[in-house]
């Protein structure tokens, strides 16, 4: 998807305008994002020198206005021109984080209060006030809403919103304290939504049902407010509307992402979205957030990188994709490059630290923590990195301390909630762990690690029904992750629902091998080499079959389990297919286990157990030579030698008895 020169120029102009517009409205993060993207567009550098005449043509628009952009709508432009002084005042207040004062420049408090009460009356609420006072309040509640440009209105309302958020944060007090939680709400939401409701009502032309002349920013704000109010359907509607009107507002896309909790939702809304480059980026970003990692996603990301070759954002997406694919090494390299290119950029370094954590690259993680701490130690990302480092050092108290700090800085810091949950689990503080996970899930329902963590914690507490529920959520989010299925299966096993458990574990085996095949060389995901099945799972399946009384199945799985020691070699494909068939109809014979060339897991506790079981089974079926063989193998393995020796003796005695009886 290469763009020609003209398109590039257009895109650049659009991005420039976006940066200015976003910063005009104090949407700092969006402005930053757009600017990052802008700079990653390669410049049509000196090679275009001969076309100098054309180049002089381009700046005919004049240099992009830095502080104030013009407005294409003449009416709005006129309004803006008239308000320029107030606007500048309000903007400087906002920059100084005096939100209420900023809002009051355009919307005095009396007016906002009026908005609240008018809407109450229009809702048909009963007036409790005496009739005598009515005229007075009537007069007060109907102050004429001054005719404001949309920009000023947005700024004022956004300031109000921010003020509410700030107060909310302040009232929540300590992280995980008594006031922290859903009880504290942004008190300004009501006012803003009522105001905007009224505004849109006024602007909507009766016939088309469309808001006339709106430029998208207010829709964005309205959508955001609605989302905060948990009115997600409406929020999505307004946000999509905003994106249609002004597609370059990345903040708006992010809000949409936050509202999409599964792939189906994404596909559903995709039809309603405008088709442009931002929407493309949005699609990729959201897919990454949803842990998708399909080859098509890679190719589209590569296309985008063709346009913005150095965009840190897109590179981050790429590393995250690799990370979700469990290609940790690749992700590590990508993140490392990203860091080297932008040494001061702290965004998404927390993910980098996760990668390093998983890979157990301690020196590197320590360096990263050092770097973050030097750059800015009071950024949530830095705190998460440091917390991760401490967690790696098994200093869990300190880790918790840093995650808490991260949360104090930003309560919506998802990874900090989840990681803090992990730390609390380590500290055996299950109560706090559950709360942390719960908060993580509340912030973002797509976080499978939090779901999984919740399940684990409940499992520790032996509340298997709960655990099962959470494990299922996690498995739903990551159906291709064998760990999730394994958890589900084990949970079911513990609850005594063996049949379902077997299904789940088989699923785990399937996705496991599939995942391996798909990801190629995976590293550090806990398995030694590709193509092998986890003996633990096999053992469990066998155990469940045994409990169900299906000895044959049990035996076959035990044998597969033992076979993993040597590895499956080229017979991997066969085994996979067999398993597939198994999960369909359960009467198939076991797959051929012994391979040879491929190195297996070696002796593990699970295989030894399986071997022991097999030996006993052979005993019970009077297959003494087999039992003998297995038991001697066991002796060699060095696991449970005593028991194995006892078994050998036993076998010998019986064999002798049999010999004698034969005589």
């Amino acid at each position: 998807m290469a763009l020609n020169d003209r398109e590039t120029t257009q895109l650049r102009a659009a991005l420039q305008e976006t940066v200015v517009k976003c910063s005009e409205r104090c949407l700092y993060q969006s402005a930053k994002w757009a600017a990052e993207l802008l700079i990653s567009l390669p410049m049509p550098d000196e090679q275009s020198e001969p076309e100098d005449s054309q180049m002089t043509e381009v700046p005919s628009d004049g240099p992009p206005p830095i502080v104030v952009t013009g407005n294409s709508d003449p009416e709005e432009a006129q309004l803006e021109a008239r308000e320029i002084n107030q606007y500048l005042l309000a903007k400087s207040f906002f920059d100084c984080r005096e939100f209420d004062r900023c809002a009051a420049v355009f919307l005095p408090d009396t007016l906002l209060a009026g908005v609240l009460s008018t809407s109450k009356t229009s809702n048909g609420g009963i007036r409790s006030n005496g009739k005598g006072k009515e005229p007075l309040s009537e007069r007060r509640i109907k102050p004429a809403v001054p005719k404001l440009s949309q920009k000023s209105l947005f700024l004022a309302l956004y300031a109000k919103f921010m003020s509410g958020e700030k107060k909310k944060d302040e009232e929540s007090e300590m992280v995980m304290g008594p006031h922290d939680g859903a009880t504290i709400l942004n008190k300004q939401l009501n006012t803003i939504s009522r105001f905007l409701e009224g505004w849109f009502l006024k602007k909507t032309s009766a016939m088309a049902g469309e808001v006339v002349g709106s430029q998208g920013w207010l829709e964005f704000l309205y959508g955001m407010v609605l989302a905060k109010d948990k009115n997600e359907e409406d929020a999505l509607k307004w946000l999509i509307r905003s994106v249609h009107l002004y597609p370059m507002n990345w903040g708006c896309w992010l809000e949409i992402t936050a509202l999409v909790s599964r792939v189906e939702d994404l596909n559903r809304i995709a039809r309603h979205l405008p088709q442009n480059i931002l929407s493309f980026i949005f699609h990729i970003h959201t897919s990454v957030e949803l842990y998708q990692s399909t080859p098509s996603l890679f190719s589209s990301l590569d296309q985008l990188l063709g346009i913005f070759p150095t965009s840190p954002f897109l590179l981050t997406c790429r590393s995250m994709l690799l990370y979700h694919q469990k290609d940790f090494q690749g992700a590590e390299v990508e993140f490392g490059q990203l860091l080297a290119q932008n040494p001061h950029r702290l965004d998404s370094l927390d993910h980098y630290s996760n990668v390093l954590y998983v890979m157990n690259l301690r020196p590197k993680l320590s360096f990263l923590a050092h770097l973050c701490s030097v750059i800015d130690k009071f950024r949530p990302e830095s705190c998460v990195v440091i917390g991760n480092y401490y967690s790696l050092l098994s200093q869990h108290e300190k880790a918790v301390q840093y995650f808490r700090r991260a949360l104090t800085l930003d309560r919506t810091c998802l990874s900090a909630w989840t990681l803090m949950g992990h730390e609390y689990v380590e500290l055996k503080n299950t109560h706090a762990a559950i709360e942390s996970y719960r908060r993580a899930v509340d912030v973002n329902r797509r976080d499978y690690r939090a779901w999984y963590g919740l399940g684990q914690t409940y499992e520790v507490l032996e509340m298997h029904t709960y655990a099962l529920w959470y494990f299922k959520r996690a498995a739903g989010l990551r159906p291709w992750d064998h760990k999730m299925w394994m958890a589900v299966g084990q949970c079911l096993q513990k609850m005594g629902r063996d049949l379902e458990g077997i299904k789940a574990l088989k699923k785990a085996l399937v996705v496991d091998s599939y995942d391996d095949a798909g990801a190629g060389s995976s590293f550090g995901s806990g398995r030694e080499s590709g193509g092998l099945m986890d003996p633990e799972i096999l053992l469990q399946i066998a155990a469940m079959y045994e409990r169900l009384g299906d000895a044959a199945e049990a035996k076959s799985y035990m044998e597969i389990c033992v076979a993993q020691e040597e590895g499956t070699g080229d017979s991997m494909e066969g085994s996979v297919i067999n398993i597939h068939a198994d999960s369909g109809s359960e009467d198939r014979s076991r797959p051929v286990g012994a391979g040879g060339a491929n190195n297996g897991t070696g002796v593990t506790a699970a295989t030894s157990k399986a071997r022991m079981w097999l030996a006993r089974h052979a005993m019970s079926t009077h297959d003494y030579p087999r039992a003998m063989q297995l038991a001697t193998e066991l002796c060699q393995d060095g696991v449970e030698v005593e028991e194995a020796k006892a078994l050998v003796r036993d076998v010998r005695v019986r064999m002798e008895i049999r010999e004698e009886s034969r005589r």
Partner: protein
Amino acid sequence: MARYLTPSKVALLALIELYTDSVVPTASTIPILSFILNQLLPSATPKSQPASPSPIDPLPYILDPKAFETLLSTYPATNGFPGRTLWDLFLRKIWHIDSLHALHDFFESGTKLLAKTTEEAKTDIENGIAPPPQAIIILSRTSPFGSFVRRANVEFERLKFNDITALWMSFVKWRQVTRAYWAKRSGGGLSRWAGDNALLNGQIEWGVEETEMLELVAYGTMDDEDADKDPVSTDDVEKVLEFQVEKMQKLGSRIPIEVKDKFRSLLDQSILIPSLSHYLSFLEAWRAGDYTTSFDNLHRYFDYTMQNRDRLFYQYALMNLAVLQSDFGCFDEAVAAMLETVSTARENKDLACLNFALNWLYHFGKAHPRLLSGAESTNMLGVEREGLAFLRIKAKEMGMFTLWSSSLLSEAKLGMSNGESVATVFANVLKSSHLIVDKNMKSMIGPQLAMQSSLWGRLGVVHLSKEYCDIFLSCHAKYALFDDTLRFTCRIAHLLTEKGKYEEAMLIMKSLDSNSLRSWKANQFWKKYCGILTLKRDLHRNNLDGADQLLSQLLQSGGSESDPDLAFETDILHIDYLMRRTDYSGALSKIEKMSAAMREDGNDLNLRIKLLTLKPLLQDKAGRPQRGFSVAVRAASIAWRARLIPALWAAMGAIANILTSLFEFSASSQILASVIPRALECENSTLNAQLYSFLVDAHMGMAGQAEAGSLRRTEHLTKCLEYIDRSFSEYSAVEDIEGQCQMIYKKGTIFMVLGDKFQANECASTVLELRKQWKLDLSEEAGGTR
């Protein structure tokens, strides 16, 4: 500023690790151990000082790699390649810490050096962990090394992350010096990012330029201008402060100027100023004689230390205050504060403080009897001797050996000044001496030796007395208060001047440590004493104008706050001056005044006798020697009783003189003949000269009684001549012009009597010569001073 850990401490840990790895050869174990211990236990420094070969090259206060290098590069490693020294091994250790994580690991591994507790050992055995190999030296948990390792671990554990990064960065900076050497040693040179694993690996991955950028971001510019700022921790600062305070309290000196700036820069770096630094500035200001500042700082110090312990240490604050007040001459306030100390200490049942305060009050009362008389009713000490006994018993009960021995000494002193049994005094002195030696109280050696020295001085064994002074100065001065040193030096100077060795005395006075003399009080004392010495010389040389100048200054400064000994000395010299001015009535009234004051205060017997003997001498000068008879006899009898030998001889001399005036020449000469040999032991030239001249007078009288021209007369006259010569030589030793002239006159007269005109003429011309010479000297001196 870090709380405890600094790069040098990390390096010390590495050194300890090196030691425990058993790569340190046996021969070099002791220097290395003492090097480490020197750092860990600063109090161990003086002991190891004589052992170290080069005491002139002391270790820097904050260890830099250089210090380690000089120590380690001299010792070969046991199991290395030939030519490899411990320094190489050490460098490998510290360069092995190649990332922040390695630093964590390094501290983690520190615990492995420690001996396991029994429980740990048990769990280890249960878990099948083998005990550590024999080759490794295991540190006991409570040993200095062990506790250092543990403390370092705990402190590291406590650090916040960015403190750890700060430590890491300063460590990287710290070892940068050794980079060149290490690069050479490790062979093949070091890569650019040696010492940081992450960067080293990153270079391959990211490229050189990017890595450099990252390094800059992470470490900042490495060799910036604040490189000279040594990384110190609050712990270091506290240690230094403690050391300095101890030094100041022990030696009574001020902070040396060159150290002062260093201190300031250290304290500026630290955000957390230890409250001790206020105490330090209090001491400094106190020594500097800056009353208001010291007051201010003392209050500040106690304000900062008060916060958590309510009134528990109030008495100490009061005590400090009282001492301070008294030092600045605010005696009333001092007494009030000390009395409050006593009552607070009693209230808090702080017997140690109480005893100390009472001891102080006792001494204060001795020094300023008038001031305490008002407070006598509240004084629980009662009569002097009982008070002392009380203190002694209390000190014994409490095990406060310092107080105990000091009360013993006080008792001895009391006995001595009251002229009581010398045996008892000796008993007390010996008791205290036993205590001091037994408990190794270095701080008490000074008073002890002073006591002994003055005791022998009083008993007339002057050389022994001087010997004690010398012993102190050469053996104990290092550990003792500077005040003591000063007093001993003054005493020696005094003894020297008595022998007329002015130059030497002044030299000794000037040889005192100039830094210690910066202390205000000591400086005052020193100046006054120097003044007294010069005054003495001036008087002897009859330089009365100069003496007048000095005297007026000395008398002026000698208010109530001045040292009583000095005041007495000054007064005596004043009397001498008046006598030389022939203002006899003035001198007499001064003597009367002084003796009246003494009677009231119950002052030292020795001084009283001195005063008493002055009186007949004055009478003698005034031409009425007989009037002093009873006084002289009294002085002699008191001196005899109290065994104040030098004073006794002086008194006997006065008596002999009176006898001479009563024409009891033979008695007089007998007295003198028996006195002089012993008096000579006292090595007091003035006294000797005087006695000889009295003897001359006595013999002259006897010659007069003999018939003219008889053999007896000639015999006496020859004896006269002989004694005159002796007296003359004694006078000339102390440069007493007047005495010399007198003697020559007498000599001339005798020659006249003998009819030897030529010799008489010679004498007359000698006198003239002397006078001329004297005038020349005076004018020269005046020119010199001008």
